């Protein structure tokens, strides 16, 4: 272990850290948005929900690595050339949207039928019902799955290395290849993931506990 190497690599890591934060924030926000929309379309069986269902199957059942390869190395042949960072975000939204819609759908389906019936009984429209009854309750139920997905998606950003985005994994592999200090760089890599993910993971268990108690009342 050499402190000097760690110090020297610090600026690179800080840059990589912010880049990852940026990409995952945009990507996850987009995924949440796609997820909410997709979940509602399926929940209400709005026309086109079959297309959404196929999208979910495709996105969930193929690796992000291949999705990125396909967009980054495959698509240019057809004339569509998307820069690396945009490719990364598209990939994350595409993959994450499917996982998020699952989380939200699970939440929506956990809302008791009686709630919807009483909403209808007081004359709420479908939109009002969603806005005031179904979504607020369903969101709470979907929180554990949502948080788990966030952790999963942040971890997935390590795959961006294959399209040459200088995020943390890429930087690490690069520095290892140049300076051959594998121990130091892997340590930095793991800790820069831990900085974000450990608080998230603790938060996840916390809401899971809260929801369990809220649910069963003991």
């Amino acid at each position, binding site marked *: 272990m050499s402190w000097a190497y760690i110090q020297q690599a610090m600026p690179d890591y800080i840059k990589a850290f912010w880049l990852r934060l940026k990409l995952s924030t945009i990507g996850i926000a987009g995924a949440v948005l796609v997820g909410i929309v997709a979940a509602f379309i399926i929940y209400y069986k709005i026309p086109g929900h079959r297309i959404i269902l196929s999208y979910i199957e495709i996105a969930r059942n193929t690796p992000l690595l291949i999705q990125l390869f396909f967009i*980054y*190395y495959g698509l*240019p042949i057809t004339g569509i*050339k998307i*820069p*690396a960072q945009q490719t990364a975000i598209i990939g994350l939204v595409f993959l994450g949207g499917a996982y998020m819609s699952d989380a939200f759908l699970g939440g929506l389906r956990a809302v008791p039928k009686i709630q919807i019936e009483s909403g209808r009984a007081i004359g709420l429209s479908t939109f009002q019902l969603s806005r005031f009854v179904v979504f607020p309750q369903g969101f709470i139920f979907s929180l554990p799955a949502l948080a788990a997905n966030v952790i999963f998606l942040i971890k997935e950003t390590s795959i961006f*290395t*294959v*399209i*040459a985005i*200088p995020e943390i994994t*890429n930087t690490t*592999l*690069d520095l*290892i*290849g*140049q*300076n*051959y200090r*594998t121990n130091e760089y892997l340590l930095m890599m793991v800790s820069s993931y831990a900085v974000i993910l450990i608080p998230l993971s603790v938060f996840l268990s916390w809401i899971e506990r809260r929801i369990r108690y809220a649910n069963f009342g003991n």
Partner: protein
Amino acid sequence: MNKIRKIILLLSATIVISVIGSQLLTVKAEASQNGRSVKQIKKAGEIKIAVFGDLKPYGWVDKNGKRQGYDIELAKQIAKDLGVKVKYVQVNANARVDALNSGKVDLALANFTVTPEREKVIDFAKPYMKVSIGVASKKTNLITKVSQLDGKNLIVNKGTTAETYFTKNYTKANLLKFDSKTQQFAALKDGRADAITDDNSYLFAWVKSHSDYQVGIKKLGTQSYVSPGIQKGNKSLLTWTNSEINRLNQSNFFEKDYNKTLAPFFGDDVKSSDITITK
């Protein structure tokens, strides 16, 4: 009915467990801190060699799944002279040092350029190839001077001497760093960058099959040498490999290797003496 199901379940469980068992029980503790000696390799009957799988014409895999190339020919010859079989371990450039030092391979024959930094962490045997850094770009937008790369996107492969050169000596280009050769050339073709830098020898080979590209900068920095990489402190294998390379030089092995594997891929601007080392 129930019994049959139970038997099937039990049977499949047994199969799975035995597969796992055989996988896990073959844990080998043979690798010492300094790697396997020649004697140990001979005893094991197999030498593990790190090679590239996507670097035509040095180390690549043909359509029949057979490994081909300049490095592969050398690997075969070494195994033959040791009287053992070869087990190829396909690596990327940035994994070569770790593959050696963690004992995953005995020898790295993967276009491994000798550099002072690398010599600190691994040992190199005698060189078998000459190389320098080159830069290739589109003919329509040819880069002939390093200064033309200011602020431009330049593709490098992680863990190569070209990357080190552009990180340490010339920092004005914007580097796109890829893990594998496949990815870097694909990115170049997609027009993701203005140029690519790597060892000049395979840039020459690559432009030959991609006629709209040209190696605009043929030589950057100093002449370097490519050597077999060996785990630090493995004296036994180092000594053996050094004398092996001497022997092969005397028998003109490298020139034959060049003619067989490289010549068909190079243009006229490369001669055998540009690549091989006669002495």
